[in-house]
């Protein structure tokens, strides 16, 4: 189903699938971490990709996984796509990331003000908690809330080429688009990511950037 078939998003919100499709179209460089639940489905709907690591658990850890990746690969862009509920469970990580200030890391929180996988119960953002304000207070170089599709292209440009760390809240409609799920085998997701990024020789457990000396 194409996004165009949906009703227009309520004023001040965007369609989540359109946001992710715009960020990942001709995605090029970015390595992607998708937070559990709807953001992972959104990334899968944009096209399953070996360099998208989708979380099926570990709620609250998407941004930190992005930080680890950004530290490991300063030569690559890293994009974390997550949700408001997931981000609220890892608020401390915004402080940790701001202190590290990785220039190649962007975090985009798709904020529908709901826990989408558990019955659309309101999150704290529905009561006014301002995630971009938290990021700004922590010291993110760039933190914004987007409520208008006209700013999507600028967001895409910042994710692909800006100097981070960047944190963006995109207010999205409280809708449930058709389910598109990524593979759920964690070892598969990890192995294909490492193989695509590090090459065949580094796909094994003992591969990687720094092999230990023989002891």
């Amino acid at each position: 189903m194409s996004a165009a078939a949906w009703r227009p998003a309520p004023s001040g919100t965007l369609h989540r699938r359109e946001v992710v499709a715009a960020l990942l179209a001709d995605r090029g460089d970015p390595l992607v971490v998708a937070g559990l639940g709807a953001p992972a489905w959104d990334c899968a709907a944009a096209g399953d990709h070996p360099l998208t690591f989708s979380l099926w658990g570990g709620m609250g850890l998407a941004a930190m996984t992005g930080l680890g990746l950004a530290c490991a690969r300063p030569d690559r862009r890293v994009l974390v796509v997550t949700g408001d509920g997931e981000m609220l469970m890892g608020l401390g990580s915004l402080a940790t990331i701001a202190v590290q200030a990785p220039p190649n890391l962007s975090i985009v929180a798709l904020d529908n003000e709901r826990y989408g996988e558990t019955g659309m119960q309101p999150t704290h953002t529905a009561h006014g908690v301002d995630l971009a304000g938290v990021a700004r207070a922590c010291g993110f170089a760039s933190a914004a809330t987007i409520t208008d599709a006209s700013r999507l292209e600028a967001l895409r440009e910042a994710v692909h080429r800006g100097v981070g760390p960047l944190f963006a809240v995109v207010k999205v409609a409280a809708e449930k688009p058709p389910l598109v799920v990524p593979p759920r085998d964690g070892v598969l997701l990890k192995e294909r990511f490492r193989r695509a990024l590090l090459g065949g020789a580094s796909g094994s457990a003992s591969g990687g950037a720094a092999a230990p000396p023989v002891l």
Partner: protein
Amino acid sequence: MPEAPKADAPEAGFAGAGLSLETPRLRLTALTRDALQAWVDGDAGRLRQETGVFFGTPPTCPPLFEDDLPRFRDRMAETPQELGWWVWLVSRREDARAVGVCGLGGRPDGQGTAVLGYSVYSEMEGRGYATEASRAVMDWALSQPGVTRVRATVPAWNQASVAVARKLGMVEIGRDPNPEVGETLIFETSVRSAPADPNGWPDRVHAALLAFGVSLVGYVPDAGHARLIELCHADPGVRAVALTSEKEGIGLAAGAWLGGARAALLMQSSGVGNLMNALGMARECRVPLVLLVTMRGEEGETNPWQVPVGRSAGALLTEMGVGVVRAEAADAVSLLVEGALARAFEGESMQAVLIAQSVIGVKRFQEGPR
């Protein structure tokens, strides 16, 4: 670690050359093929001729040794140059009576590990003979080229044997829940790679992290980790990342591994309680984890709120599928960390090293609670 006792024949290696060690109360004689054959034959006279030691008639074996006797005889027949690497007879210097045996399971393995065993006659127990004799054999082994550590595998039920291993300065590095013979405890020591230096373990752990290519260290501060955290921050090859909660470290390590880098995490035992759901992610994805945990809530703890998770940390980690070893002595920390690093990164597994409170000291609240 005391110096190795002087051997009568420092150039060991010839069958029949005679190889013995002396301690204050004991004499240890490496048994040759002929001596072992006399014992297999039950010939106390010939055994006395070969060793100079008095046995009963017929000569009995100390516990758990009899079944292995023919095997040791065969080994010494095949490789007489391995004198000293198999069986040492222990006797009392004052009356030349047999006390028991100590043994090494042959030359060291590729890791430089020699395996020590010991058994004394029941009427000779309780006098410290097993410890005194085992120390002499252990020190002899550690003085040989290619030996970096000595291991002892001890039945968990045998408290006397467990006590000997601890008195030798060994630390428990693992347990084998062998259902056939019952649970055994694995003890190890080392002098070569971990010289006795109670204040130096953080420096050796830092060196081990570098040797294994760790470039990212996440931590929630603990007083016990203060020195190691300083070393990591001062090292240009390591990025030290302060975390607000230990669970963040699991995401950090997962992302690092996805990107081809290696991370290690430092925390105190209370932080283990903050890890649980995050460990599920690492387990499902087989993300290598190395958790170095300084223990609180143990002997001498002054803050009762540290006790519940401190007491449970090992069990919680085990339940989540993390391999857990525990360092009871400063000498053992880096040795155990090296093993954990190898197992984690070469087998994509989760490993924790618990560093006992007795190693890091007890926190006093002279300046008020934190």
